[in-house]
């Protein structure tokens, strides 16, 4: 049973003029296996920065605080070590990698995360099944990673990776945005299959409650100006839907 603990996390971004701009201003959050946490908050409040900071993106500097996975600090780990330790980030804007086929990429990732190359025969079946579950045309396997994929296709492939890599804790950054109704259902089912066993934790960043109809959160947090300003149950999402972020944003500014 895994636990991700984020303690008083402060992070800055290196800006173009070499200055440091603080984005995360003391984030406290614990995600346990079996739990799903939703984070909602206005544009620019730092949600993606939190996701990137957990994953170890080099652009963000952690200035203080801790991120622990099962008690072990991940901040000292390289990006790939974090992934192998069991963290996964479905990105808001998945990156295109021309020249590297999806098939090759998935196999390399699975090999790295599992510590050995998956047996070819079962692997092919596994990938086919996972693609089928997400309504992904098998032809995508031969295309370059994310290259020329539509927004929705990219998101499906993020969830495909989630399904194949089976991390302990998954951070999903706006995996729902850019999806039509059917795609939203397919992608949500994918995430739910991943949650099924109750041994994994999910941190779901979103702007919309519609995904929360499919992926029921246990906890909802409001993110504003670089920190969590309110936490509650699923009903908090409905409140946000009705009344917007305004009262929290004001509170955060004080």
């Amino acid at each position, binding site marked *: 049973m895994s636990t991700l603990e984020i303690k008083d996390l402060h992070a800055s971004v290196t800006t173009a003029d070499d200055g440091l701009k603080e984005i995360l201003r003391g984030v406290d959050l614990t995600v346990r296996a079996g739990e799903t946490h939703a984070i909602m908050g206005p544009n620019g409040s730092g949600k993606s920065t939190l996701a990137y900071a957990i*994953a170890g993106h*080099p*652009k963000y500097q952690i200035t203080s605080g801790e991120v622990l996975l099962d008690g072990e600090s991940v901040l000292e780990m390289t990006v790939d070590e974090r*992934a192998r330790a069991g963290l996964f980030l479905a990105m808001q804007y998945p990156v*295109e990698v*021309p*020249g590297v*086929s999806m098939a*090759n990429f998935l196999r390399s990732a699975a090999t790295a995360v599992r510590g050995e190359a998956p047996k070819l025969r079962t692997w092919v079946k596994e990938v086919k099944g996972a693609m089928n579950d997400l309504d992904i045309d098998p032809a995508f396997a031969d295309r370059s990673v994310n290259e020329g994929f539509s927004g929705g296709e990219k998101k499906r492939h993020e969830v495909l*990776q989630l399904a194949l890599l089976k991390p302990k804790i998954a951070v999903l950054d706006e995996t729902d945005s850019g999806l039509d109704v059917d795609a939203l259902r397919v992608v949500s089912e994918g995430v739910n299959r991943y949650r099924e066993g109750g041994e994994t934790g999910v941190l779901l960043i979103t702007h919309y409650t519609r995904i929360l109809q499919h992926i029921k959160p246990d906890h909802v947090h409001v993110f504003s100006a670089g920190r969590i300003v309110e936490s509650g149950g699923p009903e908090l999402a409905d409140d946000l839907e009705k009344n917007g972020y305004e009262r929290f944003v004001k509170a955060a500014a004080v």
Partner: protein
Amino acid sequence: MTEVVSGLAPELKGAKRGQGYVPEASAGERFRSTDVAAFEVPGGREENWRFTPMKRLRGLHDGTATFAGTASVDVPAVEGVTIEQVGREDPRLGEAGIPQDRIAAAAWSAFREATVVTLDGTPGPVTVTVDGPGAGESAALHLQLRTTPHTEATVILVQRGSGVLADNLEVVLGDGSRLNLVVTEEWADDAVHVAAHHLLVGRDATLRAISVALGGDLVRVSPTVRYAGPGGDAELLGLGFADAGQHLEQRLLVDHATPNCKSNVLYKNALQGVKGTLTSGRQGDAHTVWIGDVLIRAAAENTETFEFNRNLVLTEHARADSVPNLEIETGEIAGAGHASATGRFDDEQLFYLQSRGIPEDVARRLVVRGFFGEVLHKIPVPELRDRLEAAVEAELAIAGA
């Protein structure tokens, strides 16, 4: 590879006369001579030399290289293959073309005996091995490969060793013949190699050439393609990996003067430099130069030509120069396009791959393998393909990525 540095030229499919960039001195009107004295000593500012670090040419260009050394040429006896050592009076020499620059002319003036390899029928793959003259030595070489009409052959020209070498490689394709040609530059770190390739494609003949540039301090290869009759088809693929301190230069000219011919050029280079000075005293920068001139003369109706150069910059301290040039003198062409793009293996790609657990070195290998894949896959001999694939990966490992 998200960042396009030198930009994409527009496709010129169905281009009309006068479209495209026309250089001041037409590529087709270059001066030609086999006599070194007919060329002025280049100073380095000439169009033809401006990208080349002249100081590193070890005197090949100014007469101080003595050509006293010997580069060996080894061709195994294979059925259907005739090997001859001939003097410079042999009338076949020069049939594919003659020098267009001073170093090629110097090599022509200095070689003692030429090797002529004639391929007839359907011989098995032939590996020709050239060994450099050794460290501190310089040599000139002349090699001619010929196919008789309707021959189908594969030649692998492996070039390796130390020292300084200037040479002319002539390839004469008989009518209706087909030649797969792989030329590798697998030199030791000290080597300097300046080569002129004269490629003459016969009527309805097919040339499938792949150039692989890996080793050497400075390697400059200038291939010129001409067509002896209509229906010729030439594909020139290139793969180059410039690591710390290396200068790799590829200067191509495809001269379409005959109707109904095709040319297809695709060169891909990866660059991986390091900061500061190497133990050899040289700067750690990696440098590639690709010049792709295509000339479609008025008579060359119904020509189809495409030329592309792609460069993948893996590190800082690397510079890729790329100059595609298309000159069109006829309106009646089947299709033409030229483009060049230089991209960076950027931090976002690396982050993405690593965020899926893939270690950095594996991530780089994935990207480079993917980048070179379309060229490597076309290498006709599987063992050679495997060996070169491994050699590329070894290059990648050298700078510690």
